[in-house]
């Protein structure tokens, strides 16, 4: 009996150590963003600021157009999410409910494209966008991401679980495919679509390499690019960098805490099937 207890205690200690390591950078980021400069670089390190320097945030907004970065990020992440969800929805519907020649080929091509790392095509996509004269534009930022094979594949598995007899019954009742999609399919898979939307928005929010390539004007930057540029410019002002990092992370963290169940369930479902 004693031995088992010891095992449990030991397990808990390991668990708490790792949980602490996971959470600590977030806590340090938030607290560090409220310190003054001396506190961020003091030896021994300061953990709790003596006085909360809320003015750090005013300084961050004054030094770099973070408001503009926010706007750009929300806009591109929203457009990407809505349009790619719409396109994947239509595609997934066709793959699940319609019968046509070449379906097998399409499925095979899509599945093998899932294996292609984004980093392998991002540079030639830059080339395309540059040729179209779309560098430093919102269209250039979103264009390659307006459809997602990944989400289409995910929705296919979701729609597949809705019985085809419902589709057939709707057809017999004289509904069009368009009606079926919006009046039956979408309402029935609301939670799945919502989860995909959330995941897509989060990955749009955190995108870095693509906007780094296709924008070089400060007004067109997204949050993460603005943040990394600010971190180089703000140089030694550690507390401002940490405040700016907090600004970038906090909105998503709040979204995550509200929808944590949907997000985690969505990721698990996504990956297990893939």
């Amino acid at each position: 009996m004693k031995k088992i207890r010891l095992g449990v205690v030991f397990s808990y200690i390991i668990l708490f150590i790792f949980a602490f390591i996971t959470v600590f950078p977030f806590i340090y980021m938030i607290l560090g963003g409220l310190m003054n400069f001396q506190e961020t670089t003091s030896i021994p390190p300061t953990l709790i600021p003596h006085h909360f320097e809320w003015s750090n945030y005013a300084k961050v907004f004054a030094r770099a157009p973070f408001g503009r970065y926010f706007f750009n990020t929300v806009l591109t992440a929203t457009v990407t999410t809505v349009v790619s969800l719409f396109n994947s929805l239509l595609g997934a519907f066709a793959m699940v409910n319609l019968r046509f020649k070449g379906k097998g080929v399409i499925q095979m091509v899509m599945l093998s494209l899932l294996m292609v790392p984004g980093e392998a095509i991002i540079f030639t996509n830059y080339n395309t966008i540059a040729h179209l004269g779309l560098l430093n534009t919102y269209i250039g930022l979103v264009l390659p991401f307006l459809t997602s094979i990944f989400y289409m594949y995910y929705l296919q598995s979701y729609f597949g679980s809705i019985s085809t007899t419902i589709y057939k019954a709707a057809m017999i009742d004289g509904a069009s495919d368009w009606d079926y999609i919006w009046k039956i399919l979408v309402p029935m898979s609301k939670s799945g679509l919502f989860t995909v939307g959330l995941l897509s928005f989060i990955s749009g929010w955190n995108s870095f390499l693509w906007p780094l390539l296709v924008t070089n004007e400060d007004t067109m930057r997204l949050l993460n690019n603005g943040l990394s540029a600010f971190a180089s410019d703000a140089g030694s002002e550690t507390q401002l960098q940490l405040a700016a990092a907090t600004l970038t992370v906090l909105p998503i963290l709040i979204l995550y805490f509200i929808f944590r169940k949907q997000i985690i369930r969505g990721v698990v479902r996504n990956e297990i099937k893939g």
Partner: protein
Amino acid sequence: MKTNQKKAWLYLAPTIIFVTLFSIYPILRAFGMSFQSGSLIDLTWTGFNNYKYIFNDPEFWLAIKNTLLYAVISVPVGLAISIMLAWIIFDKVKHKALFETTFFMPYVTSTIAIGIVFRYIFNGDYGMLNFLLRAVHLPAPDWIDDPAMSLTTIIIFGIWSSLAFNIVILMGALRNIDPNFYTIADMYGASGKDKFWRITMPQLVPTIAFLLTMNIIGAFKIYTSVYALFNGAAGVGNSGTTAVFYIYNKFQTVGTPGVAMAATVVLFLIILFATFLQRKMMKKIGEN
């Protein structure tokens, strides 16, 4: 059936158009460009010269070496820690959702932002980590500014980031194991150790195989975390350069897209090969 045909293609049209333009075309174009030299607006055929160039470029080999070392160390270590933590949460903890939510946080948050935080935690002089190491009289290396430490720092950050996804997926798999297995094992008086190695691990093999594949692919593409840790550079004196860093540098900074694309093709083949090899191995293990 006839009308169905047309309709189906209509619904698929947006996807097919975008995929062709921004997934299929760029792959073919990257392959083509790897045999061309010159700047983006003036490309000429050059045969295998770009490949010859990268294979003779010590910087390319350093990038490949770093990327491979990163993958070979961070993936197994990260996965082992994840399995241990997932098992503890699953087997011993009441508030499973609380821990799952906690461990998953790094997955949704920006690598750039957290990388900046790590840069200060890892700071050689005033960083929190070295403060703790000194407190217990352990060596406190200069994690960020010492070129010899670059890769180690990248690996630690990589392991920290990888736990989130692994743990959540493993928890999903653990929940799917038939609880009757454990009930029967308990009836026969199996120890916790027995249950873990005889029931849990064999049931987890497909999930572990999947995670290995995903993690290895992810490891080969490492870029953003290095960028964030070292403030846009690949460590002091390029000591922490990676494959994608090399490609980016050759493409954007040096302006030799052909060389960059040759490196892309090589990286792509390595990823394909690693995935293939790893699947084969896991199949073997699954059969035994």
